[in-house]
């Protein structure tokens, strides 16, 4: 293991995060606060409880996931896209680092940032609504697992993209709709039976459901299914990255 190499990449990426603190931390926190004001306070006060939870508290896990997915993907994809775009990737390609070391450095940094962001949103939420976390360890576990998985997914997007538009199209056109329709703002039990079935094809449903379970003890699908689906997606992403580095696809001529 090239520990010094992993550390170098991780530090480099974290330094980038702290250089752009406003953009990477402040703006998601601000937008989540706006959601809480609009949905939690203004609209939520007119809504009844869902599964015995106040609407304001009900949307917290979904809102965190919304930010977490978007930020994990955009952060990790940008992290690897930039050196490709600027040409500095030559150094990474000529360095004695294996694919897994590169992944640990880049994805580890992106995921760390997402976890910090998730916790920060959790703290911010305190200012707007009262909530309880029934299973804090599971909550943290889901936070980490989701951050890692979607940072890895973002890493793949960054490897694949060869212009800025491609970099943004997946988060914008796929992830945001899936998250909105994944039960961030409602329980899927509130949907007509047909749409409940359709929804089960949306992987984000499992994430939000599992994460919400760690807060409230209630879930749309079983917690084991949620954890299993996320882990499965993580493994698929890992396999794809392994293949990309092995074949040199989009990396080595």
């Amino acid at each position, binding site marked *: 293991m090239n520990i*010094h*190499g992993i550390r170098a*990449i991780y530090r480099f990426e974290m330094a980038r995060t702290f250089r752009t603190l406003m953009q990477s931390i402040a703006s998601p926190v601000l937008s989540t606060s706006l959601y809480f004001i609009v949905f939690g306070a203004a609209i939520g006060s007119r809504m009844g409880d869902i599964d015995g939870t106040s609407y304001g508290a009900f949307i917290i896990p979904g809102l965190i996931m919304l930010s977490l997915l978007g930020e994990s993907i955009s952060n990790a994809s940008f992290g690897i896209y930039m050196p490709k775009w*600027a*040409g500095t990737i030559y150094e*990474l390609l000529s360095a004695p*680092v294996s694919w897994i070391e590169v992944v640990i450095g880049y994805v580890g940094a992106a995921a760390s940032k997402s976890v910090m962001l998730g916790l920060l949103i959790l703290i911010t939420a305190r200012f707007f609504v009262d909530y309880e976390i029934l299973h804090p360890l599971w909550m943290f576990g889901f936070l980490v697992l989701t951050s890692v998985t979607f940072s890895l997914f973002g890493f793949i997007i960054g490897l694949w993209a060869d212009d800025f538009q491609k970099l943004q199209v997946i988060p914008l056109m796929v992830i945001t709709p899936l998250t909105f329709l994944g039960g961030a703002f409602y329980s899927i039990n509130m949907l007509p039976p047909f749409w409940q079935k359709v929804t089960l094809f949306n992987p984000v449903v499992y994430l939000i459901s599992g994460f919400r379970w760690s807060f409230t003890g209630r879930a749309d699908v079983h917690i084991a299914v949620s954890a299993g689906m996320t882990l499965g997606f993580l493994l698929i992403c890992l396999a794809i990255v392994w293949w990309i580095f092995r074949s040199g696809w989009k990396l080595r*001529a």
Partner: protein
Amino acid sequence: MAAIPSLASHPAETPAAIVSIRGVGKTYKGGFEALKQINLDIRRGEILALLGPNGAGKTTLISIICGIVNASTGTITADGHDIVRDYRAARAAIGLVPQELHTDAFESVLSTLRFSRGLFGKPPHPAHLENILRELSLWDKRNNKIMTLSGGMKRRVMIAKALAHEPKVLFLDEPSAGVDVELRHDMWQMVRRLRESGTTIILTTHYIEEAEEMADRIGVINKGELILVEDKHTLMRKLGKKQLTLSLQQTMREIPPGLAGLQLELSTDGATLVYTFDTQSEETGIASLLRRLGEHGIDFKDLQSSESSLEEIFVSLVHKPKGDRA
């Protein structure tokens, strides 16, 4: 001035070639054959200049050795390690300064060096980084963001990055491209000092002057082929040849037997005689040539001397049809 600390240890039993290239070819996607079966041994501790026109394949070859481009055929070892199977050890021995200026705009000079050193698996060594930065006159700029530096300084930053992990072999791809005269001379000086400390250096250039100034050996690449690799002094001797052209009063059928043994050539029309001699030898032989021509009653109406330059040799090598090359 602080010298860059000794970078490589050279146990006596290590083979002479620090980089060994065997049958390396590269066909890019789309079918363009950029390299054709390159065989080359780079000797430990030498400065090798790869000379060739634009598009010859110099960057492709270097990129393959450094792991940036995949070879289509052939094998390479660096410091005794296969660059594919044993890439960690091979790459740790290599430093690369690419042709294009690629730097992290927002990083400081010192932090980008620390990054490079770590990436190549070496523990922190602030004193070494300081030495490099001082050597390259970048120490005062160590806390500056790279984007605030001039182009020449950015190039020096790239050299510093390549040296951060104490490589045994340094590749400099077109080090003088877009560099002013002063920096070029500084760079040459630095390369010589690195060589003195035991580092092997491979540089590519399309400036003959640079190859002549720097190299121990010169390899000429054209259209993906390594046309020749030769000791610089040997090459210079070939290049150092001069010719004396004599326009004769009377045409001749053949060179008189009495003049055999001299480097004489008769033109096909028999009107001119060409004498080739070595400028580097003590005795050009011109005086005795003229005397012996007189003895044989050969008169000439005009004489001209000409010198073949490295440029000419290079051009003639590059344009010679295939079968003609030695």
